[in-house]
């Protein structure tokens, strides 16, 4: 809070000073390419628990499409379990935020293809076990890793019931500026937090609806008018490992 008020104060002084200098006519002849109009923009607000981001995945629609995985790997610059040249990590050491698990019902022979990603639990075991608080859940329900604090102990990987977390086994360069990731820390799906904060959909959901089988709906679970809430109200849905009582943010239809 103190930091914010200091900033505001300096801006005020700054504008005053600017006015004085402008009057002296120092400006002529110089070509400015970016105005500082946004300096007056208000402080951004912290996310709150008024929202809870979640997703409904219809397993019956999903089929053998992998658009979500491709989109996720592209968004975060992952190889998704495939070795590429120059990379040293084995396939089992590669990061996967989202994966498809093919299932066969033992009694009925029914086949299912399930995209599994971080389930964004309401009470995430990864957050409970993390010794430093690097494993965290934002107020709006997004579970993720604050890599600044991660010491790479991998206890969260032991605790996660969905195997949603990966450890970065090798050096990484040319990261996406909106998605830093680096050797020696743990990472996982963060529901494309950089997109969500801009009001966009996670990459997997966007791809699923654009190129895929439209099996994914994303939105605010606390807003009863959101598409995802309406769907959840209409159809029955299930959580993975509901027996653990984690109240996941990702729900499934058709399992």
């Amino acid at each position: 809070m103190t930091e914010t008020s200091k900033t505001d104060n300096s801006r005020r002084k700054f504008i005053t000073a600017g006015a004085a200098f402008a009057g002296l006519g120092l400006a002529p002849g110089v070509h400015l390419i970016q105005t500082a109009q946004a300096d007056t923009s208000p402080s951004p607000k912290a996310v709150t628990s008024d929202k809870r981001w979640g997703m409904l995945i219809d397993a019956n629609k999903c089929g053998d499409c992998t658009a979500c995985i491709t989109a996720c790997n592209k968004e975060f610059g992952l190889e998704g379990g495939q070795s590429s040249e120059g990379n040293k990590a084995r396939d089992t050491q590669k990061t996967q935020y989202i994966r498809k698990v093919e299932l066969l019902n033992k009694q009925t022979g029914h086949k299912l293809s399930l995209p599994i990603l971080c389930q964004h639990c309401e009470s995430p075991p990864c957050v409970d076990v993390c010794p430093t608080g690097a494993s965290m859940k934002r107020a709006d329900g997004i579970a993720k890793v604050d890599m600044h604090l991660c010491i790479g102990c991998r206890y969260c990987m032991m605790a996660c019931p969905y195997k949603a977390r990966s450890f970065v086994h090798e050096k990484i360069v040319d990261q996406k500026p909106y998605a830093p990731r680096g050797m020696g820390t743990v990472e996982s799906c963060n529901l494309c937090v950089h997109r969500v904060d801009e009001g966009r959909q996670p990459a997997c959901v966007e791809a699923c609806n654009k190129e895929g089988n439209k099996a994914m709906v994303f939105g605010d679970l606390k807003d009863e008018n959101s598409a995802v809430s309406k769907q959840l109200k209409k159809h029955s849905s299930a959580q993975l490992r509901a027996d653990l009582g984690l109240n996941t943010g990702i729900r499934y239809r058709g399992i």
Partner: protein
Amino acid sequence: MKNSPVLLVTAALLALSLNLPANDKPGRHTRDTHRQSGTDSEHKVIDKDVQGKSCVRDTKDMRRNHMKYLLHQRKETTRLGKRWPKNAHKNNFSLERCINCHARVKKGNAIVPVSIKDKNHFCNHCHRKVAVKIDCFQCHNSKPTGKIKLSGSQAPAKNLKSSALSDAREK
């Protein structure tokens, strides 16, 4: 959006950027940012040639406090989800913005992005000298991935569209 406060702030920005060298102790300012302009003009660090003509704070302040600003913003963004609008010029201390302007050097007429491995990377100028290890770039990209706009006189206009600068963010 062109109204009077905008003009005022614009002028203020400009005034500050023009005044800085005069207010600062002579020599100190030139030491690192312009250190190599005399001997090695190939690698002059761009700081005034791009974007809004000035940094988010004046040089003296940034030199002393950049780590505090970065740390503050890091906590707010990562943990609280506070995101400044991309064009909130004086208040957005994102590392991405630092890198986007500063981590470029002139090579001949072209302006090329460099990574932290390059000794002329902006951060290296001081950090190598004072031997303070930077922990940022194990995870963050040290190389600009966004576009920059060059200001009038200094901009080698023909090179603007050169391959070095066309590595626009893929979105």
